[in-house]
């Protein structure tokens, strides 16, 4: 039983971080109706940024949280503006433009392999002030980097939800996600909103990078590992839903951790797919998705 509770605690912490990696994906989909296949690469960029920042300056990883995301926002903003926007314009008002998906895949190839050219294929970790530290909670061991990741993930999700509800930009994002044409008619510049959404999604990937780097390693194709999980999470939670991403992440994290106490951990991967598919049969729109989204 101890092992199961320990596994559940750990699963919840990892799950929140999976949710964090999926948050940017779901935001971008919600607004742009595009599955961003480059999302894992953006996470990789976030992780490398955090890695180099901490490695070169030796700053505390919490401080990196203040520096990396804004930089990534700018990166994402212009990536969408320069690379993705032209395709959007060519596709016109198609609801879910497939060519844009392919462009994001191209971006994925370019970013991952640029990283390979620049940094090589090797795995890198950096020892930070909180790496490998843990505290005891009764008989359970809580890893400090994972616990802070958990807290940051939840704070980010709440922050994003508040931003979407309370600010003018947030409202414009939501209006665009609900009805692109109507938002256009209301005088919202669709492409600027896309830039912001993409920038925000990338910035969140930057946050995820900062919380992952104290205990995880980074290499050019690290994003792929998180990508597929993030896809499952967003579909589970409902494409475009912020609480859905967090909840989906938690569910996946818990399943992965708790189930593997009872079976080989290779099978938990299969179980995750199975549960995913069952939920799709029963409730195709996911936990929080809107019916019109599928």
């Amino acid at each position, binding site marked *: 039983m101890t*092992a199961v509770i320990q*596994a559940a605690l750990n699963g919840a912490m990892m799950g929140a971080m999976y949710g964090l990696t999926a948050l940017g994906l779901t935001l971008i989909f919600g607004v742009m109706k595009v599955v961003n296949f480059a999302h894992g690469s953006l996470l990789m960029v976030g992780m490398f940024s955090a890695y180099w920042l901490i490695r070169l300056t030796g700053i505390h990883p919490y401080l990196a949280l203040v520096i990396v995301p804004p930089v990534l926002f700018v990166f994402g903003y212009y990536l969408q503006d320069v690379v993705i926007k032209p395709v959007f314009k060519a596709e016109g008002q198609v609801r879910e433009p497939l060519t844009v998906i392919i462009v994001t895949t191209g971006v994925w190839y370019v970013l991952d392999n640029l990283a390979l050219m620049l940094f090589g*294929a090797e795995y890198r970790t950096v020892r930070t002030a909180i790496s490998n530290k843990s505290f005891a909670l009764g008989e359970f061991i809580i890893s400090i980097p994972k616990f802070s990741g958990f807290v940051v993930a939840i704070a980010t999700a709440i922050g994003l939800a508040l931003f979407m509800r309370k600010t003018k930009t947030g409202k414009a994002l939501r209006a665009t996600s609900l009805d692109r044409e109507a938002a256009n008619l209301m005088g919202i510049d669709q492409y600027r909103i896309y830039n912001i959404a993409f920038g925000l999604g990338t910035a969140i990937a930057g946050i995820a990078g900062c919380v992952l780097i104290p205990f995880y390693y980074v*290499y050019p194709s690290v994003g792929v590992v998180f990508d597929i999980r993030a896809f499952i999470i967003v579909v589970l939670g409902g494409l475009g839903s912020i609480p859905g991403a967090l909840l989906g992440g938690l569910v996946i994290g818990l399943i992965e*951790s708790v189930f593997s106490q009872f079976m*080989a951990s*290779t099978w938990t991967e299969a179980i995750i797919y199975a549960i995913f598919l069952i939920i799709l049969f029963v409730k195709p729109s996911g936990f929080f998705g809107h019916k019109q989204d599928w």
Partner: protein
Amino acid sequence: MKNGSITTILAGCMGMALSAALFAAPALAADKTVKIGNVEPLSGPSASVGVQGKQAREMAIEEINAAGGIKSLGGAKLELVYADSKSDPTVGVTETERLINTEKVNLLTGCWNSAVTYPATQVAERYGIPFVVPVAVRDTITERGFKNVFRIAAKDSWWVRDQFRFLKDMQEETGVKLQKIAFVFENGDWGTGFAEKWRELAKKDGYEIVLDEPYPSTATDLTPVVTKLKAAKPDIVMLVSNAADAILLTNTMAEMQVKPKVVLASGGGHADPKFLENTDTNALGIFDEVEWNTDVNKPAAKPANEKFKKKYGYDLTGESVDAYVAMYVIADALERAASTDPAKIREALAATNLTTGPGMIVSYDGVQFDETGQNKNAGIVIVQVANVDGKPERVTVWPKAARRAGYVPAFPANK
């Protein structure tokens, strides 16, 4: 070459007509050199190992050529031709075909990944081109009745056999009795192959298997596995891990305060030059089975390693030593064959009995192939990560004859 290649790419893009013309262009025949084709993962998931092997080969070839090349062929120089397999069997086959037909290589080496080595050696067998496999440990590689495949490294059943010999020897030596054993391994070709044989031998030696746990090598989090390990309370943990997961596993075990008496790894990720850098003191006490270690008791080993380290900035690894040795085995065979005819090279390779020379930096006595093409002397050593002068270092502990003088293994590593 640079301009040439860009033109070729452009031509390639222009479609079949141009490509066809290009295809028909004959490769330039090279005189006075023996071409060795090398299929290695130079990009993709195993790129770092591929590069290690490439650098070791280059160093060996430089030495051989500087020493006058192949004298029986009038001082012919050895030339290396590389092909990137990307760890993908399909690419491996295409590249092997290209090396044989376009580059007209006289013999081949590679491919590190067993998955690439299987089909690549099949291609070589079909063309009758000798194929020297430095590493790729799956038993079946030399068990298919092929005439042209020669392997330097030990096969995996031998690795496992020696792991259990080590455990037995150490328990006898220290009087510590260990009973409960746990298997944790990556669920690829390599890990599952090892695990299969572990089960067999553990049963034979009377261990109690308390955990038998494959994990996906792409796992983002190994805490579930470590939690399970903690609950199973094994005395011995046997591991097979790739680079990233070895680091993650070691650090997670430290974090979760899982301290089994003995942790015995199987090279690969644990032997990667980056492993100690990324785990530091968390790795202390781990035993690791490797083909080679820097302190191996061979006269040529130390200078070779120093030279390598100076050149590339890191120590030779098991993989790179096998690649290095493979070059000397090839040079030796060519010398005796006195011909570049594949059939003759094949005969010479089969008759190899190399025990001396600058290439002999291996931990075992020499290279001699049995009728399946397996190096029958191939052996391995077991090292322990120990604190030497305030820094974690890999120290050879087994076989006892090879143990670093003055070192007392910490067995069990944790009480």
